[in-house]
């Protein structure tokens, strides 16, 4: 007892030490950010790198596009192209040659002018096979670019990009490519500053220090001032950017918010203005809030199942159709996905730059039963059993369980589920060692071509065994020769109709983008690409108004 009494001061001492350590959390990031014009941005994960010709991910995209700018950029409200480094461009009559006129005020962050020759040098770097650029195919519409990237020709002079003078760049395409200007806002087509790259190694080295905060030279609206690994990346408004008067922020702090549950809490306590995502179980709560910070919008991506058409029983189109017809996508999206997705009946999301895909089917259990009986499995008799594989994730599991249930109750067939670790899953899909595999595709650019060319016979992402010469011809040849947008879309519509009749994939839902955005953030509209241009974002100092 004596002991205990004497220990009390020690307890209270220890406790007060903890309390003192906690201090006062004080002014949160959001409040100070609003005062100083600094956006605190949840960016999902630590970027793998910041070299535009090396990186591949979404978090990288956000930072790279703050530090660099393409020839043309996308307006965040309309997604239509608008001037970037090029102040204007003209097409030749046959639409194969584009001449870009560079803005004389476009500057690298060290003060050098951005020149046409920088683009020629950079595109050679982006396409050089030694670079190992996974997005080099973005430049394949350019004449001979694909041959150069695949090592079939080694003379870059033959590739369709020329600097006519320091301010004029001429690009020659294989075929008229309506979406080509859009691609210029993709980081793989960005110019990098040649002297900086050369200073730190060979032009095709993936492994140099040129992207460090103290070394990097960019041409975007912001310049990097700090890169603390796994902590934050800080950028501030660039003093050399040609359109700096329009830049509304003084800076942005990007956080690697890998854990979306923690990210949501950071948002709640005022450490973030913007979150990369929202945990699914929190969405109903936010949705019911008044003045909710929750923002959901259609997103250019489709969640679907790949069917292995080389294997029994999925080699029978009737079985594939029966499976698709017996999924009630309305129920799935409203319950399992809590209304955060739209039912999908095609691979291309609706309204992809004015394109509406065919809607050939819906939920039709009676038709499904008929088809499966015709295929030799009436009421599930003789059914050999199939397996759905997906990469380990609670979200994928829930969907697979729901679909398993629907197939069991409508068709009376047995389906097993198997989760695989990410790289194992990728390997299985690549080797086509599956019956059914989960898949998602997010568009690289807004055009039906980006979804439909997945299923050409030789497509690297096909993975279904679907091969149809007519389909290939429509996508690879006919669509590129179409006279105008309308006839081009008609060709896509025909192709997609063929695809959905053959059903090598089962479309399940169209994605949405989901963010928590603080009400002080302005100029950040939702769009199909979930593409933000930080140049247009600004912060309203709400406290100032309150005062």
């Amino acid at each position, binding site marked *: 007892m*004596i*002991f*205990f009494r*004497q*220990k009390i001061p*020690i307890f209270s001492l*220890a406790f007060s030490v*903890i309390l003192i*350590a*906690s*201090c*006062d*959390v*004080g002014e949160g990031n959001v409040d100070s950010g609003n005062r100083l014009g600094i956006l605190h941005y949840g960016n999902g994960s*630590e970027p*793998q*790198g910041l*070299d535009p010709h*090396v990186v591949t991910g979404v978090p990288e995209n956000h930072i790279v596009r703050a530090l660099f700018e393409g020839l043309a950029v996308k307006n965040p409200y309309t997604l239509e192209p608008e001037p970037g480094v090029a102040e204007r461009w003209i097409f030749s009559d046959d639409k194969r040659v584009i001449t870009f006129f560079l803005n004389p005020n476009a500057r690298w962050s060290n003060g050098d002018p951005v020149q046409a020759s920088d683009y020629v040098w950079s595109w050679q770097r982006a396409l050089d*096979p*030694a*670079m*190992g*650029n*996974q997005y*080099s*195919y973005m430049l394949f519409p350019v004449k001979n670019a694909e041959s150069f*990237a*695949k*090592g079939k020709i080694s003379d870059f002079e033959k590739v369709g990009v020329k600097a006519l003078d320091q301010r004029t760049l001429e690009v020659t395409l294989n075929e008229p490519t309506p979406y080509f200007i859009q691609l210029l806002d993709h980081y793989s087509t960005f110019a990098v500053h040649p002297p900086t790259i050369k200073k730190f190694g060979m032009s095709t080295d*993936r*492994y140099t220090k*040129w*992207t460090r905060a103290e070394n990097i030279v960019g041409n975007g609206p912001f310049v990097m001032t700090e890169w603390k*690994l*796994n*902590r*934050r990346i800080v950028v501030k408004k660039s003093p050399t950017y040609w359109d700096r008067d329009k830049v509304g922020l003084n800076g942005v702090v990007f*956080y*690697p918010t*890998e*854990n979306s*549950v*923690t990210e949501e*809490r*950071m948002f*709640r*306590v005022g*450490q973030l203005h913007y979150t990369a995502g929202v945990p699914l179980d929190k969405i109903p709560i936010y949705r019911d809030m008044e003045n909710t910070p929750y923002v959901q919008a259609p997103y250019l991506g489709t969640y679907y199942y790949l069917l292995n058409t080389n294997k029994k029983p999925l080699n029978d189109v009737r079985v594939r159709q029966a499976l698709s017809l017996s999924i009630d996508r309305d129920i799935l999206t409203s319950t399992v996905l809590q209304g955060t997705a739209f039912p999908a009946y095609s691979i291309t999301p609706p309204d992809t730059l004015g394109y509406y895909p065919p809607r050939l089917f819906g939920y039709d259990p009676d038709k499904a039963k008929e088809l499966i009986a015709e295929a030799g499995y009436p009421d599930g008799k003789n059914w050999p059993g199939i397996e759905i594989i997906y990469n380990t994730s609670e979200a994928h599991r829930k969907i697979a369980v729901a679909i398993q249930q629907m197939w069991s109750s409508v068709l009376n067939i047995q389906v097993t589920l198997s989760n695989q*670790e*990410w*790289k*194992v899953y*990728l*390997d299985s899909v*690549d080797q086509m060692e599956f019956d059914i595999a989960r898949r*998602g595709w997010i568009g690289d650019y807004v055009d039906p071509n980006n979804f439909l060319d997945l299923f050409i016979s030789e*497509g*690297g*992402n096909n993975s279904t065994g679907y091969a149809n010469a007519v389909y290939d011809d429509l996508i690879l040849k006919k669509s590129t020769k179409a006279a105008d947008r309308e006839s081009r879309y008609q060709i896509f519509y025909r192709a997609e109709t063929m695809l959905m009749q053959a059903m090598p994939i089962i479309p399940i839902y169209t994605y949405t983008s989901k963010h928590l955005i603080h009400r002080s953030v302005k100029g950040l509209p939702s769009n199909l690409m979930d593409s933000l241009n930080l140049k247009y974002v600004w912060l309203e100092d709400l406290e100032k108004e309150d005062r």
Partner: protein
Amino acid sequence: MIRFVVVRIFQALPVILAVITATFFLIRMAPGGPFDSEKAVMPEVKAALEAQYKLDRPILDQYFSYLADLGEGDFGPSFKYPGRSVNELIAAGMPVTAELGFYALIFAVIVGGLSGVIASLHPNTWRDHLPMTFAMIGICVPSFLLGPSLMLLFGVHLDWFPVSGWGDIPGDKVLPSITLGAAYAAYVSRLSRAGMLEVLSQDYIRTARAKGLSEWRVITQHALRGGLMPLVAFLGPAFAGLLSGSFVVETIFQVPGLGRFYVQAAFNRDYTMILGTTIFLSTLIVIFNLMSDVLAAWMNPRLRSELFNYD
């Protein structure tokens, strides 16, 4: 004594070589490679990538060239983070993980030690049952449950501590340290309770009491020294465990430590990073075990004499 240490170090070398070899070949047996991604990678691109990282060479070649680089202290470039070397990533993450582990250990020793000692002084009363119940809970509750709960209570509702970060906002180190330390605090309290109970029943304690010493002095001057002996043997491996086992806490609180890199490296098949961190951590574990053995030998007269015989 010196010979004992030297012999132990030489015994550790084959262990570490075995770890390197096993890891090197095991990770290559896992399906998928570092450059597989959801969007199909062109075969030309994949070949170029593999050439840049020497993965196109025969595997034994790669193994020996890796060992040669390792001999110079070079863990190689990271596959997942182009432009970063594994050495650099470890150098960036290690101090943070070590600091986190250190605070967690301090927390574990103070809280666990105190509650264990108190419990031992009042065996089978509520002052014993209460801390031991907490200790049992502490051992059972995983950090992925404890972390978010603490975060909700102290971070969101009470707003005492930040919910994430490390060294950015005052107080952001408190919750991760407590979360990581809790399970160890529980072990420490059970260990120190058991140790104290054993010592308190010894004759020399009775003698001390009989001499008329105050209870405070009996405990602090006589009982604690012997009672906390089991703790010392526990601390070395515990610190090694804290260093290699902090990835869950690091992920929950977005702490930029080594654990996060380690786990991500495995998911990404970042071969050099997996190898680098495995070798680094296994070396640390070997060192801490050695230190703990030496310390225990030094504190325990019986073991000490055995070692001198060894000499």
